[in-house]
């Protein structure tokens, strides 16, 4: 399978602060989850891949093109869908007009075809009925879906989504998963999120960043396997547990490595595996 994204020794510095350092990463078609604590460098990585931020060092290849070359960067942008973490909206636009404007920027110059495409992507995010509404009249969740709609224009080969499910209710998130799963049949999707259950539901692979470095890069099931035998129920909280809480049954769910003998083991979630990974990661500065 050919790589859509290939990063070699990529770093990014703001003044003296390293946001990313020595990043080697290959992304292939399908959905890849990007996890990490706040400040790990997830958004910086997405901005570099979206060609809106140049790296300070290292080599970036996106869709087999070099974004540092202006002509190749334009070609990358033709095949890119990018949902930034915080997308603001210009005043006065309706939902339709906003996506239509972005579609023009994405070279949909034939009005009829463009309007069909705008209707299609608004439909994908369940905003077809809201297309004539002013953006300022939409709810937070609707605005987030509108922001996602612009990233779906033209079924891009590479989709970079920075926390797409923030502010969505469970039904909307489930619907969005369907959209992304469908998109991933033909695209490479990089999904940056704090929602481990979205990653578990959608992604074949997961990359975990910490302090600008990759601390895990592999299949979701490999990360999950690391937590096997580390989650159990007990009548008391475990003193050295990484996380522990009282469940609805009155028993305590403990995450610790390893489980004590005879403990009632339960199936770990991706969140358990992520927390276990974070607790075992060496301090990175």
């Amino acid at each position: 399978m050919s790589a859509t994204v290939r990063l070699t020794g990529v770093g990014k510095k703001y003044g003296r602060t390293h946001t990313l350092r020595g990043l080697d990463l290959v992304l292939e078609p399908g959905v890849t989850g990007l996890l990490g604590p706040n400040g790990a460098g997830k958004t910086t990585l997405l901005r570099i891949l979206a060609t809106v931020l140049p790296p300070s060092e290292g080599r970036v290849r996106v869709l087999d093109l070099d974004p540092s070359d202006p002509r190749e960067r334009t070609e990358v942008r033709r095949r890119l869908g990018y949902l930034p973490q915080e997308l603001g909206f210009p005043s006065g636009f309706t939902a339709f007009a906003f996506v239509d404007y972005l579609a023009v920027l994405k070279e949909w110059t034939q009005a009829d075809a463009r309007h069909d495409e705008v209707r299609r992507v608004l439909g994908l995010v369940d905003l077809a009925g809201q297309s004539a509404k002013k953006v300022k009249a939409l709810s937070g969740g609707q605005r987030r879906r509108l922001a996602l709609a612009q990233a779906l224009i033209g079924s891009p080969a590479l989709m970079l989504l920075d926390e797409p499910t923030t502010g969505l209710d469970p039904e909307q998130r489930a619907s969005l998963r369907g959209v992304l799963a469908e998109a991933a049949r033909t695209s490479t999707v990089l999904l940056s999120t704090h929602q481990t259950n979205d990653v578990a539901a959608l992604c074949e692979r997961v990359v975990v960043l910490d302090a600008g470095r990759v601390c895990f890069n592999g299949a979701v099931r490999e990360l999950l396997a690391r937590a096997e035998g580390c989650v159990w129920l007990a009548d008391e909280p475990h003193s050295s547990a990484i996380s522990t809480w009282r469940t609805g049954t009155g028993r305590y769910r403990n995450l610790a490595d390893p489980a004590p003998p005879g403990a009632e083991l339960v199936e770990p979630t991706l969140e358990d595996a992520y927390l276990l990974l974070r607790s075992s990661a060496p301090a990175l500065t």
Partner: protein
Amino acid sequence: MTAVQNTMDAARVSELAKVETRRYARHPVFLLGLVLGIVSLYAALNHVTDDYYGPPVIPAFFLGVFGMVVAFRLTRTMERSAEAVESSPTPVHQRVGALLLACLLPAALGLLAGLAILGLGEVKADWAYGTWSTDERVAIILGQSLVAGLGGPLLGVAAARWLRFPGAVVVPVIAVSTWVIMVNGWSATNQDSTGWLVARLFSPLAFFTTLDTDGGTHRVESWRGDPWFYLLWLVLLCALAAIVALLKGAEGETRARLRSSLVVAVVLALAALTLAVTSGPDHTTVRSPAGVTGI
């Protein structure tokens, strides 16, 4: 660059310009200026007057100054979606180019206002025209209507591209308004001073006459300077504003071409200003019902 790419770029800029023109036309500040401008112009042209050169200030203010605010706001509001916009294949100079094309809307309205003044403005007698010929009057009035309607918004786009602090919209408005009021006001008492002549014509809106009263009788003073070369200077100022707006963020060959264009436009503009200063009448003349005299 291939012909196919050129056609594609033109189609894209054309589509964007349509969107930006619609945004301009719906902007509340533009609509307010339009209504106030129409009402004011109607009131000014609805009676016979001594003040033939007064009404052009109306489109200059309501299309030019209001247009600065509108264009500034339109340019800046798209920056809220900056990351999504920047990750599109449309380069920044094409996006700004579309905004600049949208400024043709107030320019077209300025032209209509200018034609209305030229066609409908009635004076009590010919002395109210001052000593300017018919074609010179056309240059004076188009400079304050058509070109002001274009130049104000173009300056607004340029200011929005370069001034990055909150409230920056007031900078071009205050700078231009202060300069225009100051130099034209002081020129009224120093009509034949070459220094004040240069300062007045350096301004984006210069008066060529003043309506005065002498012993209860109105008279029109016609000042120094050549209206047609001054109009050319204004057009070149518009070109400079557009180039400066496009220059911000431009890369590679586009940037190099814009820098060359900027140098050429500056040279041509200074030449036009020099000709505007050195041509035309070399002293102020006064025209009143009694005839033409020097001052």
